[in-house]
């Protein structure tokens, strides 16, 4: 079959778009990672507070605090908290596993953020239900680096 100029131009245009599609893949990766955590269920928005500085000087070490409103009793406690980043090469950042013995569902740690992005926190309760929260941040680059 002869390749007409029309088909060539259309396929070339399509091929040129492919690299840009890749750049957005991480948001889809993040959604996939969240879906895997949820296992078919849905997460209600609320109860989860994710605190990240709105402007970060360097993405290599970003202080992050996540807390979930919960009495942490046998009847009502947080079983796990999963942190998923939408702009990192890999979406999963860290997962915390707690029990009522934690007393409070509040954890602070330091993470890497590769770019300005939205970070999501998915909390699973003792009864299996899910709640979620998120935070967006701007990540700036340091001036005068190695390369």
């Amino acid at each position, binding site marked *: 079959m002869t390749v007409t100029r029309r088909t060539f131009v259309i396929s070339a245009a399509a091929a040129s778009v492919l690299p840009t599609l890749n750049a957005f893949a991480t948001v889809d990766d993040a959604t996939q990672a969240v879906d895997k955590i949820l296992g078919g269920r849905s997460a209600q928005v609320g109860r989860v507070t994710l605190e990240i500085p709105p402007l970060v000087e360097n993405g*290599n070490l*970003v202080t992050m605090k996540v807390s979930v409103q919960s009495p942490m009793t046998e009847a009502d406690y947080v079983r796990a908290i999963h942190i998923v980043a939408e702009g990192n090469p890999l979406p999963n950042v860290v997962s915390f596993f707690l029990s009522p013995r934690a007393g409070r569902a509040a954890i602070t740690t330091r993470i890497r953020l590769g770019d300005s992005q939205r970070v999501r926190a998915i909390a699973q309760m003792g009864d299996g239900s899910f709640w979620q929260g998120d935070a967006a941040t701007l990540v700036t*680059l*340091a*001036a005068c680096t190695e390369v």
Partner: protein
Amino acid sequence: MFRSSQALQSNERLQRNEMFQRNEMLESNEMPWVWQVFLSCLLEKRLSLAILFSLAILLPFHASSRADPVGAERQSSYVLMSPDTKAMQDDPLLNPATFAVLDGQVLWQEIAGKKNQSCASCHGDATVSMKGVAASFPKVNTAGQLLSLTGRINQCRTEQQSATPFAAESKPLLALSAFVATQSKGMPITVERTAANEASLAAGQRLFNQRMGQLNLSCAQCHAERAGQKLAGNPIPQAHPTAYPIYRLEWQTVGSLERRLRNCLVGVRAEPFAFGSTELLELELFLAWRARAMLLESPGVRP
């Protein structure tokens, strides 16, 4: 009309692709659009307008030059950091450089070299013997050699311990320099102009004021004249070496002033001076003298 807008577009492209950093630096002076109009006037042979705009270009640039901050005007780059990064530096249990200090504490006791001595063998308790030491470097020794703290550590290794010197920027050297430097924490830098260091100090000052690299910028243009203004979203520090060695978040590890200066040189697209070079040493001496009486914070955390 079409020709002048083309000229404007190619100027924009030139500025964006090749002069991004210079534009960022000069953006507070409104130079970009003034340059564009000036060049388009020249291209369209509107000479009188071009002359008018050339004045507009020269005047703001002259007005923005400020003298190097002195005395109480001087500030550590600590003040420019976000609250989180400051907290990271302030609390030793949050400071990632603490591990380097602890490693240094171990190395201090370690026997090394043919003479089977450790640092402790001669210097005893570092919290006593090393107090104020880091704050006095770089300095000229009795043999007339200008040495930085790491240079002095390696001199001890070779001459007193008969051990192999540590490689530049190696973990053990950084650990020892972090351990020694932190013994001077809170103490003022005591580097003064002396007959012995005069020539090196002058050389360092010349280097500080010398334009370098493809971007043709001197240290002074950013760190003296435009300290406090923004470069690509980040505030420009005055560049006082009050916290070295630092845990630079960008490096994700502890590093020396030499490494940081090399980063600056890469930043202006200059071939960086080699580790241990005379140029870096002279610059370090000048920077320490320029920061004399400022308090040491080592080990610091910096973005």
